[in-house]
């Protein structure tokens, strides 16, 4: 029914209909979007805030390394710590076993990785005096640190998540191995997402769904490509009208290229993880800190909800490192200082911009 409008122009003042959410774990973003943290503060920064509510995050796995589990674990832990219900599906016979590997958040008493900012400042005082010109994050004060933990925690990968966070109501698990098709998983997701249906009023809660190794070969539905795509399409539609985030990992190397591309297009945020070969002398010469890297993370697409402007990153590939052997950090790749005497390094060093037809390493 058309109600008579008295607006003179096609412009209307952008008055937000919802108040800024006061609830922990949800942050306001531009264009009326709300963010959930990925559980990795570096990744939140790279993505411009976190994962937007209502978006689908797809992680492309590397069959040679389980690094996608790192992303999934931090994502799941972050949600549980902030009292956000979680639905977890995996091809394992008993998915609940995976919950024992979720990392625990550090308490304020433990040493935190933010110490690294002050360490760097001592050593490179001359260089870092120019930091103020970049307008980047200044070292956080204690007050800011506490506020940050309302949204994103630092996780200690060596300590398992306390039992209190894994209580029955908050976590649902489902195995996808024996189901003949995806109808059961679809219904489970639909029921789960009903509790987070988005209305114009204030947001009451946010939820997370983590689906691991989707389309792994041991699943019966593995070769039913159109059925799988239909499921993702439907899931994507459901999530659009929910205050929740779905993260889904799948192995692109085990699927047909066109099917993989279709999945990539359906993703709002698209990431991929890659293994780093051990003892690769060429890589060791090319990159600084090579020994500390456990893998590479690439950001292919960043969610663009309510806007048409793409996010172009200065660098799209990051190294995954374990700081102090317990904190997950992402760092830009830095080329090692070029050995001027050899003269051949210019030919072998990678290009500085991200190339779409890039070789094994995109800086």
């Amino acid at each position, binding site marked *: 029914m058309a109600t008579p409008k008295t607006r003179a122009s096609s*412009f209307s003042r952008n008055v937000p209909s919802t108040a800024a959410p006061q609830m922990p774990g949800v942050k306001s973003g531009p264009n009326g979007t709300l963010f959930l943290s990925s559980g990795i503060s570096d990744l939140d920064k790279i993505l411009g805030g976190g994962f937007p509510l209502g978006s689908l995050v797809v992680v492309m796995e590397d069959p040679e390394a389980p690094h996608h589990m790192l992303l999934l674990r931090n994502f799941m832990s972050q949600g549980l710590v902030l009292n956000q219900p979680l639905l977890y599906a995996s091809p394992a016979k008993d998915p609940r076993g995976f919950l024992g590997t979720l990392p625990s958040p550090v308490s304020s008493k433990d040493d935190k990785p933010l110490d690294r900012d002050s360490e760097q400042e001592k050593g490179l005082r001359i260089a870092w005096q120019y930091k103020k010109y970049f307008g980047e994050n200044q070292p956080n004060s204690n007050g800011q640190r506490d506020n940050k933990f309302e949204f994103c925690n630092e996780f200690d990968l060596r300590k398992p998540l306390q039992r209190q966070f894994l209580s029955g109501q908050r976590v649902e698990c489902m195995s996808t191995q024996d189901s003949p098709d995806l109808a059961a998983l679809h219904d489970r997701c639909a029921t789960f997402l009903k509790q987070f249906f988005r209305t114009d009023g204030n947001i009451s809660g946010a939820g997370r769904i983590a689906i691991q190794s989707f389309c792994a070969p041991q699943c019966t539905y593995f070769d039913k490509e159109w059925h799988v795509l239909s499921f993702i399409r439907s899931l994507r*539609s459901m999530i659009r009208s929910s205050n929740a985030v779905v993260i889904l990992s799948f192995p692109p190397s085990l699927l047909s290229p066109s099917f993989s591309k*279709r999945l990539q297009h359906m993703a709002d945020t698209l990431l991929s993880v890659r293994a780093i070969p051990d003892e690769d002398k060429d890589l060791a010469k090319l990159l600084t800190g090579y020994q500390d890297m456990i893998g590479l993370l690439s950001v292919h697409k960043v969610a663009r909800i309510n806007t048409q*402007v793409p996010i172009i990153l200065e660098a799209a590939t990051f190294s995954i490192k374990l700081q102090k052997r317990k904190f997950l950090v992402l760092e830009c790749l830095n080329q090692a200082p070029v050995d001027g005497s050899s003269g051949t390094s210019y030919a072998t060093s990678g290009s500085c911009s991200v190339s779409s037809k890039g070789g094994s390493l995109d800086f």
Partner: protein
Amino acid sequence: MDNLLDRALGLDGRGDRWPLLGKVVLVEDCVETGGAFVVHHIIKRFLSPQPAAASNHSLILVAFSQPLSHYDRVLRKLGCNLVAQRDHDRFLFFDMLNLRFPDRDDVKTGSSVLVSLFEKIYNAVRALSAEKNCITIVIDDIALMEVVANGSSDSVLDFLHYCRTLTSEFDCSVVALNHGDIYSTTEKPMLMLNLEYLSNILVRAEPLATGSAVDVHGQLMVFNKGEHDGQGTPGSKVHNFHFRVKENSVDFFYPGGRG
């Protein structure tokens, strides 16, 4: 205010008549470089035409990809109020997001969805054209339509052929978005070849050969099959230029001509 894309599409004329009447425009993109902004631009030009006399423009948006709230916010920033247009019956939104997840691999259910969708579009077009309206049908996007049809590219092609008949029967335009890189590994991508043959104007968004950059988001190739040159001889023309997408507009410029 004309730009390179308007000139390539033929939208820079001074006439009252919408230049894309009776034409099919196909926009192709890839994962690295999205092409939705081209569709947004055409929607905006169509619903907010320069001469105010052309107030009989009606747009039907068949959305498989995003909800109305997304298009509303994006177009608002471009200067076009979709909700107000909808209240004046100038904008019809066909929400295809909430289609039922099929229980079985049923090709028949998929094609029946497209058949009923076409019926809906046909009835809407017939009703609108009775009031002498100029109509554009926008489809976002074809790859998701294939998923809805359970992979039956024949059904999708039939649907698009029927939409094409609307362009001659009712003098409307059809604008469709598709993801070209999905078909790049197929040996004989019948659907894509047919689509490219079917369309009068092909717009392809690609990343730059040198990689991504903050100032230049990609390059556009516009192939206008029916474009006439100055002397009036029929022919076709290919346009190539770069673009940068902003919230309120898109900048188009020749390579190296940033500014």
